[in-house]
C-alpha cells in the first residue's frame, strides 16, 4: 500500500507536469498522419533560377527554382529529388564549397529575376551533408540573394551578393563577407537603400579579386523602375576591403542591371552585359585585362532584352570565347561575343541560366520558365527534364467529375485541366491545355462538363473552351461607347456563379456580368477602385528600358466573391485596397474598406471568401508585400462588412493570399500564405502549419471539393497539392481531444473497382500521386503510443478476423488504410510458386468491426463497406463473382491441405523406413510411399523454376490461375470460366477421394507400425494447417 501511494504521488506529479488534457493539439500533433499528395504536373515544369553543378563530379547537379525550392540530381540529370522542402521555396543562388562539394552546399533564398509575381526569401542557408539538412546562416532580411562566392583556398571565407528588397528601401543589401563559415557577417560594400548587388564574381585563380555589379531598382504594384545613377560595376583586389568602379569603355548616362562573368580558363577575360539608357551602348562588353578596359561587342536583341529577367552570362569553363547569354530564347557565341546564334528550338522561352558539364563542354544544361533542358551537342538540340514538378499555379478550381478534375493557370505556361486521379498515377498524358500565354483562373461550367473558361494575362484573352472538341472562343468584354479604357489586372478575376449555370463574372475596374456564357456582357458596378491616375502609368513602366507587359496594370478588381447563399450578395476586392459589397446584385455598392481595423491603406485585397453559413459573413485576405509589408492580414465580418475583426495570430508566417471556409464546420478555415498552408479548427484563435509532405511553398489559392472533401492547393512552385480528406478536422472538438482514443465517424467506404491499366510514363518522368482507394479508418490518440502492445483487427459480421492492420501510434489524427481484401489463400507447397496464388479476393460489402486493442483497453468502431456506385456490374453479377472466387479460394486451400497431408505422411514413411523395419513392414511402406509421390506429381509441379524454366502446369497451377482471373474482375465470371471451375473442382474431388482411400489404408499401416514399436505415420488437421505459417 505504501508503495502504491508513493507511485500514485509520482503519477500525479507526472500528470501535472506533462498532462495536456482537453486542449486541441497544434501542429504535427493535430494533423497526425494526414498527408498531402502532389499531382504536379511536370510536363510544362516551371521557372528555374540558378543551376549549379559539382566541380568535379558531373553526375551531381543542383537546380534552384523560382518557387519550387532546390532539386538535386546525383545521376547526371535523369532524376531529381527535392532537398529544400522545409524552407522558403524561392531561390536566388546555389553554390557548392569547392573544397568539399560533396557535403557543403549553400542556398541563398529569394529569386532575383524580379518579375511582378516573384516570391520572397528569408536568408542564407548552409548544408553540411550534401543537402539533406539545412540551417540558416543569417541575412534573414535580405529577401533576395543573387550570388554566393566561396574562396577555393579557404572555404570558410564566403562572399554573398544581396540584391535585397524589391518593393521598398532596405539597408540589408550589398556585398557581405564571412570569415567563419557563415557564423558572422560583415557588410563590405553598400551603395544605398534602393541599390542591391545583382551579380558577384570571384577570380578562381586569385580569390581576393572580386567583381560586384550593383543595380538600382524598385517595383511597386503599379510600376517598375530599373536603373539609375547608382547602378555600377565594382572591382576589389584586396578581398573586398576597397572597391573601384570599372567603367572604362562603358556607355555614359544611367545604367540598369549589369551581369558579370569571368572566363574560368583565363580569368583576365571578363564579360559584362549592360542595361543602358543609351540604346547604342546596350549589350555585351568584353575585357581582356581584368576590367581595366572594356570593348562593346554586341547589342543583338537577345543580348539586351529585358535585363531584369535575363542578366546572366555563362562562359565555357575550357574556352574563354564560348559564351552563353540568358534571354527570351537564349543564345550562344563561339567567337568571344562578336556573333551569337539562338540556342535552338524546342526549349521553353525565357532562359535564365546555363551550366556546362565539368568534363565535356558539349554537354550543357539550361534553366528556363519551363524547366531544365539538357544538350549533348554544345547547345543545338535539347531535351527536357520531365521530372521537375515545379509548376507555378496562380489559382485552382475543381469540377464534379468522377474523379474530380483540377483547373488552373500557370506562370508563362498556359492553363491546364487534369484529373485528381488516374489509373497508374497522374501522368503527363492526362493533362489538357486550355489556354495560351500566362494562365491564371480557369473555371469549369457548373453543368456542362465539356466547357471551361480560361484567360491570359491582362484579359488579353478570355476564352470559353470546348474541351471535347478542343475549340476556343474569345468572349471578353470590350469598352462600350462612353466607357473609359477598361483596366484588367495581369491576373484578372473571373468567376462562375453558384446560382445561374451560364453566368460569368469578370472584373476590370468595373464588375462585368454575362448570363449567356460570355456572349453578351453588362457592367453591374461603377469603377470600384480608387482610380488613382498616378497608379495608371504602366506604359511608362520599366525604368531605363521600357517594360510595358501589362504586369503593372493597377487600380483593377482582383477578387470577386458571389455569396453561395444569395446571388444578390457580391463582394469585390481591388488591387489598390478597396473592399466593396453589393446586397442587390450590383444596384448599389458600399465601400467598406474604412471599417477594417489595422489595415494600412491601399493594401491589396487579394481574396474575399463569402460565408457558406451566413450571407452577412465574409473573410477577406490582404497582401501588403507589394508595399514592402510582409505581415499577414486576414479579417472576418459577420455583418455584411460593417465591422471586421482580425483572425491572425503569431502562429502564421508569411503574407496570406487565400482563405477557404469549410463547408461543414464554420470554425475550420484553411489559409494559404507565402510560406505554406495554415489551418485553424477554432475559428482563427490558433493556427497550425500543415507540414506532412507539404513544403514551405507559396500557396496562391485554396479550394475545397464539396463532394470529396479534398483540400486542393494552387502552389506557386510545386504544382497542385491535395489533402484528400479533411473530415476528421471537422469533428475535432475539445471533447474529442480529451479522449484517450476516439474513432471519427466515417461515410461508408467504397469498394473501388479501379482499373489496373495505366502507368505508361518512362522512368524519370514525374507521375502524380493518386488518392488511396482503400477504406480509411481514422482515429484520434491523445498521446503517442510507445509502450506496450497495440493492435488493430478487422472482424466480419461473424466476429472472424479478416485482417490485422498496423495501427498508427501518433498523437493526434491517425489514418489506417484497409484494402478490404481477405488474406492470400494457403497454397500447396511445391517446387515453384504459382503466381495466381498471390491474389487476394475482395471482401463482400457490409458492416465490419474495427477493433483497436491498446494495452488492456479495447476500442471498436463499425466500418461500412459499400459497392462502387460507379460499378458497371449488377449486384447479382458481383455476387456470382464473389461466390466463384471464394469457391476457388477454398479449392486452393483444400488442395494445399491435401499436399500437406501427402508431405507429412511421406515424411512419416521416410522416418519409419529409416528405423530399419522388418521386411514385412518395408513391403507395406514402399508402395505407400510410391502412391504418395505419384499423387503429388499429379497435383503440383515438382520441377522447374518460376520463370522460363517453368514446368507444365498441374492442378495447383490451374486452380490458382483461374482463381486469380475470377478474383481479379469485379463482375460475373464468364461461362467458360464457370465451366472450367466445375472441371477443376471435380478433379480436386477425385484427388480428395483418392486421399480418402489412402487414409483408410493408413490405419492398417499404423497398426502394424505400432506393433513393431515404430513411430506412426501422422498428419495434422486442416484447422491446424490453416493456422500455421509453414
Amino acid at each position: 500500500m505504501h508503495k502504491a501511494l508513493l507511485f500514485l504521488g509520482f503519477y500525479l506529479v507526472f500528470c501535472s507536469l506533462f498532462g495536456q488534457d482537453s486542449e486541441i493539439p497544434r501542429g504535427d500533433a493535430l494533423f497526425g498522419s494526414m498527408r498531402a499528395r502532389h499531382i504536379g504536373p511536370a510536363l510544362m515544369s516551371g521557372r528555374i533560377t540558378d543551376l549549379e553543378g559539382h566541380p568535379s563530379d558531373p553526375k551531381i547537379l543542383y537546380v534552384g527554382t523560382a518557387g519550387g525550392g532546390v532539386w538535386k540530381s546525383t545521376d547526371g540529370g535523369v532524376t531529381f529529388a527535392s532537398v529544400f522542402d522545409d524552407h522558403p521555396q524561392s531561390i536566388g543562388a546555389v553554390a557548392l564549397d569547392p573544397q568539399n562539394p560533396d557535403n557543403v552546399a549553400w542556398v541563398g533564398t529569394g529569386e532575383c529575376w524580379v518579375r511582378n509575381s516573384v516570391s520572397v526569401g528569408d536568408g542564407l542557408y548552409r548544408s553540411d551533408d550534401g543537402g539533406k539538412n539545412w540551417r540558416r546562416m543569417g541575412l534573414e532580411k535580405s529577401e533576395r540573394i543573387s550570388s554566393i562566392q566561396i574562396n577555393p583556398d579557404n572555404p570558410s571565407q564566403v562572399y554573398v551578393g544581396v540584391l535585397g528588397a524589391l518593393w521598398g528601401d532596405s539597408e540589408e543589401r550589398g556585398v557581405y563577407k564571412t570569415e567563419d563559415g557563415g557564423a558572422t557577417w560583415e557588410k563590405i560594400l553598400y551603395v544605398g537603400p534602393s541599390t542591391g548587388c545583382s551579380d558577384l564574381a570571384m577570380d578562381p585563380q586569385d580569390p581576393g579579386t572580386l567583381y560586384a555589379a550593383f543595380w538600382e531598382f524598385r517595383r511597386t504594384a503599379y510600376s517598375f523602375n530599373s536603373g539609375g545613377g547608382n547602378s555600377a560595376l565594382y572591382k576589389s583586389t584586396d578581398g573586398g576591403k576597397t572597391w573601384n568602379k570599372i567603367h572604362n569603355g562603358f556607355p555614359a548616362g544611367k545604367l540598369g542591371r549589369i551581369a558579370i562573368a569571368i572566363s574560368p580558363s583565363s580569368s583576365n577575360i571578363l564579360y559584362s552585359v549592360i542595361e543602358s539608357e543609351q540604346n547604342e551602348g546596350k549589350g555585351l562588353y568584353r575585357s581582356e585585362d581584368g576590367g581595366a578596359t572594356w570593348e562593346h561587342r554586341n547589342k543583338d536583341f537577345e543580348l539586351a532584352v529585358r535585363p531584369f529577367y535575363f542578366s546572366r552570362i555563362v562562359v565555357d569553363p575550357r574556352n574563354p570565347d564560348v559564351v552563353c547569354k540568358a534571354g527570351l530564347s537564349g543564345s550562344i557565341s563561339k567567337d568571344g561575343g562578336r556573333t551569337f546564334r539562338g540556342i535552338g528550338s524546342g526549349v521553353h522561352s525565357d532562359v535564365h541560366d546555363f551550366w556546362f558539364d565539368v568534363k565535356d563542354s558539349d554537354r550543357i544544361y539550361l534553366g528556363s520558365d519551363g524547366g531544365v533542358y539538357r544538350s549533348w551537342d554544345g547547345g543545338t538540340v535539347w531535351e527536357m527534364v520531365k521530372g521537375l514538378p515545379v509548376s507555378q499555379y496562380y489559382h485552382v478550381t475543381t469540377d464534379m467529375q468522377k474523379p474530380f478534375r483540377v483547373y488552373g493557370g500557370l506562370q508563362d505556361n498556359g492553363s491546364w485541366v487534369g484529373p485528381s486521379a488516374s489509373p497508374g498515377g497522374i501522368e503527363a498524358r492526362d493533362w489538357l491545355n486550355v489556354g495560351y500565354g500566362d494562365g491564371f483562373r480557369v473555371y469549369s461550367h457548373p453543368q456542362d462538363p465539356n466547357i471551361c473558361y480560361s484567360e491570359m494575362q491582362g484579359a488579353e484573352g478570355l476564352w470559353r473552351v470546348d474541351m471535347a472538341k478542343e475549340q476556343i472562343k474569345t468572349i471578353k468584354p470590350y469598352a462600350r461607347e462612353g466607357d473609359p479604357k477598361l483596366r484588367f489586372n495581369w491576373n484578372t478575376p473571373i468567376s462562375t456563379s453558384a446560382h445561374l449555370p451560364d453566368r460569368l463574372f469578370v472584373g476590370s475596374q468595373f464588375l462585368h456580368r454575362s448570363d449567356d456564357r460570355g456572349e453578351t456582357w453588362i457592367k453591374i458596378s461603377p469603377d470600384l477602385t480608387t482610380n488613382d491616375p498616378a497608379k495608371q502609368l504602366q506604359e511608362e513602366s520599366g525604368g531605363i528600358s521600357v517594360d510595358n507587359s501589362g504586369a503593372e496594370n493597377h487600380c483593377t478588381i482582383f477578387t470577386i466573391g458571389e455569396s453561395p447563399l444569395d446571388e444578390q450578395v457580391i463582394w469585390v476586392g481591388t488591387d489598390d485596397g478597396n473592399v466593396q459589397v453589393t446586397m442587390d446584385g450590383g444596384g448599389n455598392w458600399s465601400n467598406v474598406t474604412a471599417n477594417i481595423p489595422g489595415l494600412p491603406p491601399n493594401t491589396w485585397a487579394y481574396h474575399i471568401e463569402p460565408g457558406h453559413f451566413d450571407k452577412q459573413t465574409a473573410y477577406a485576405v490582404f497582401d501588403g508585400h507589394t508595399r514592402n509589408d510582409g505581415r499577414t492580414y486576414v479579417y472576418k465580418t459577420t455583418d455584411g462588412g460593417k465591422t471586421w475583426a482580425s483572425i491572425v495570430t503569431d502562429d502564421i508566417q508569411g503574407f496570406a493570399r487565400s482563405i477557404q471556409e469549410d463547408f461543414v464546420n464554420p470554425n475550420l478555415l484553411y489559409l494559404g500564405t507565402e510560406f505554406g498552408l495554415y489551418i485553424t479548427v477554432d475559428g482563427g484563435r490558433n493556427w497550425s502549419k500543415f507540414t506532412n509532405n507539404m513544403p514551405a511553398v507559396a500557396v496562391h489559392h485554396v479550394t475545397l471539393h464539396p463532394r470529396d472533401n479534398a483540400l486542393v492547393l494552387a502552389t506557386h512552385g510545386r504544382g497542385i497539392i491535395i489533402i484528400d480528406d479533411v473530415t476528421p478536422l471537422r469533428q475535432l472538438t475539445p471533447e474529442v481531444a480529451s479522449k484517450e482514443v476516439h474513432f471519427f465517424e466515417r461515410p461508408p467506404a467504397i469498394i473501388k473497382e479501379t482499373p489496373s491499366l495505366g502507368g505508361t510514363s518512362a522512368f524519370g518522368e514525374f507521375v502524380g500521386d493518386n488518392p488511396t482507394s482503400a477504406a480509411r479508418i481514422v482515429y484520434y490518440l491523445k498521446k503517442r503510443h510507445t509502450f506496450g502492445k497495440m493492435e488493430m483487427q478487422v472482424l466480419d459480421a461473424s466476429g472472424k478476423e479478416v485482417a490485422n492492420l498496423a495501427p498508427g501510434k501518433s498523437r493526434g489524427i491517425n489514418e489506417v488504410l484497409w484494402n478490404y481484401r481477405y488474406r492470400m489463400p494457403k497454397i500447396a507447397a511445391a517446387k515453384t510458386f504459382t503466381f495466381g496464388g498471390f491474389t487476394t479476393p475482395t471482401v463482400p460489402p457490409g458492416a465490419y468491426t474495427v477493433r483497436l486493442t491498446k494495452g488492456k483497453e479495447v476500442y471498436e468502431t463499425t466500418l461500412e463497406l459499400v459497392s462502387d456506385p460507379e460499378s458497371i456490374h449488377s449486384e447479382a453479377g458481383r455476387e456470382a463473382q464473389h461466390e466463384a472466387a471464394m469457391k476457388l479460394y477454398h479449392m486452393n486451400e483444400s488442395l494445399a491441405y491435401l499436399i500437406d497431408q501427402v508431405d507429412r505422411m511421406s515424411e512419416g514413411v521416410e522416418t519409419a523406413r529409416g528405423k530399419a523395419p522388418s521386411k514385412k513392414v518395408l513391403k507395406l511402406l514402399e508402395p505407400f510411399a510410391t502412391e504418395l509421390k505419384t499423387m503429388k506429381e499429379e497435383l503440383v509441379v515438382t520441377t522447374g523454376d518460376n520463370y522460363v524454366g517453368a514446368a507444365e502446369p498441374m492442378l495447383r497451377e490451374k486452380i490458382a490461375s483461374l482463381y486469380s482471373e475470377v478474383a481479379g474482375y469485379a463482375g460475373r465470371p464468364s461461362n467458360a470460366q464457370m465451366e472450367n471451375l466445375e472441371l477443376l473442382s471435380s478433379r480436386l474431388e477425385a484427388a480428395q477421394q483418392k486421399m480418402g482411400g489412402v487414409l483408410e489404408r493408413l490405419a492398417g499401416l499404423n497398426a502394424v507400425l505400432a506393433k513393431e514399436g515404430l513411430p506412426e505415420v501422422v498428419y495434422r488437421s486442416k484447422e491446424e494447417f490453416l493456422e500455421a505459417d509453414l
Partner: protein
Amino acid sequence: MKKALLFLPVLLLMAGLQTLKAQTAQEIVENYLETIGGKEQLNAVSSIKMQATGKAQGMELPITMFQKAPGMMRMDMVFQGKEVTQMAFNGEEGWSTNFMTMEAEKWDAEQSEIMKSDMDFLNAFLQYEEKGYSVALEGEEEVEGTPCFKVKLTKKPVKVEGKEEENFSFYYFDKEAFVPIMQEEYAKTGQMKGQSSQTYFSDYQEVEGIYFPFSISQKFQGQTVFDLAVEKMELNAEMDDALFAYPEPAPASGDKE
C-alpha cells in the same frame, strides 16, 4: 517482469524531470540504454530470434529474423508454404534468394561492404565510442506530436561507387520516455540515393529484462511503406553460423569423384 513494469513509470518520471535540465547527447544515450535494461544486460545478449508479421501493400507475410553477435543477420519470409531468405549476412558477405530460381545469390561486393559497416548487434548505441561512432544533440523536435531530442549518430564513412561518403542517421528520443520513437536515414545507393526515410518505433515490450520495440513502421514522404509487428522474441537461442553463410551450391555432378 513485474518489477520492470513498476520501474518503468518511475523511470519515465525521472526522465521527465530530467528534461527540465539541459541534456547532452551522451546523457540521452546513457539514459536510453539504462531505460531499456542497462548495458550489462544488453551486452549479455548473444543472439535474437524473432517471429513477426510483415505488412506491405495490404499483404501480411510471416517473417522469421535471426541476429547473432557480432554482426550476423538473416530474414526469412514464407510464401506459399516455402521459406525464402529475403536477406542474410554473415558479417562479411550478404545473399538473398532469387525469386525466379529459388536459389541463393550473393549481393554485390559494395552492398556487403556497406552492410558490414552498418551492422550493429545488439544496438547501435552500445559501446558506440569504441566502435568509432559519435553522437551529437542536434536540438529538439516534435515527432508524432511528441517532443523529442534529435540525436545524430555518425558511423564510420562508407564507400559508395568508389567514393567515401559520410554515414549518419538521426534518432528522435521521446523526451519523457527516453527511447527513440523515430530514426531518419538516407538511402546510400540506388535510385533513391540521398533521400530520407523514417522508421517509427513503438509497442516497446520487455523480453527477459530488456525493452524492444515490437512495432516498426517505415515511411517515405509521409506514407507507410512497410510495417513489422513482432510476435515473439527469443534471446540467446542457439544459432549455427552456417545459418547466415551463403549456401555454397553442391558441386556439379561431373566433378564428383
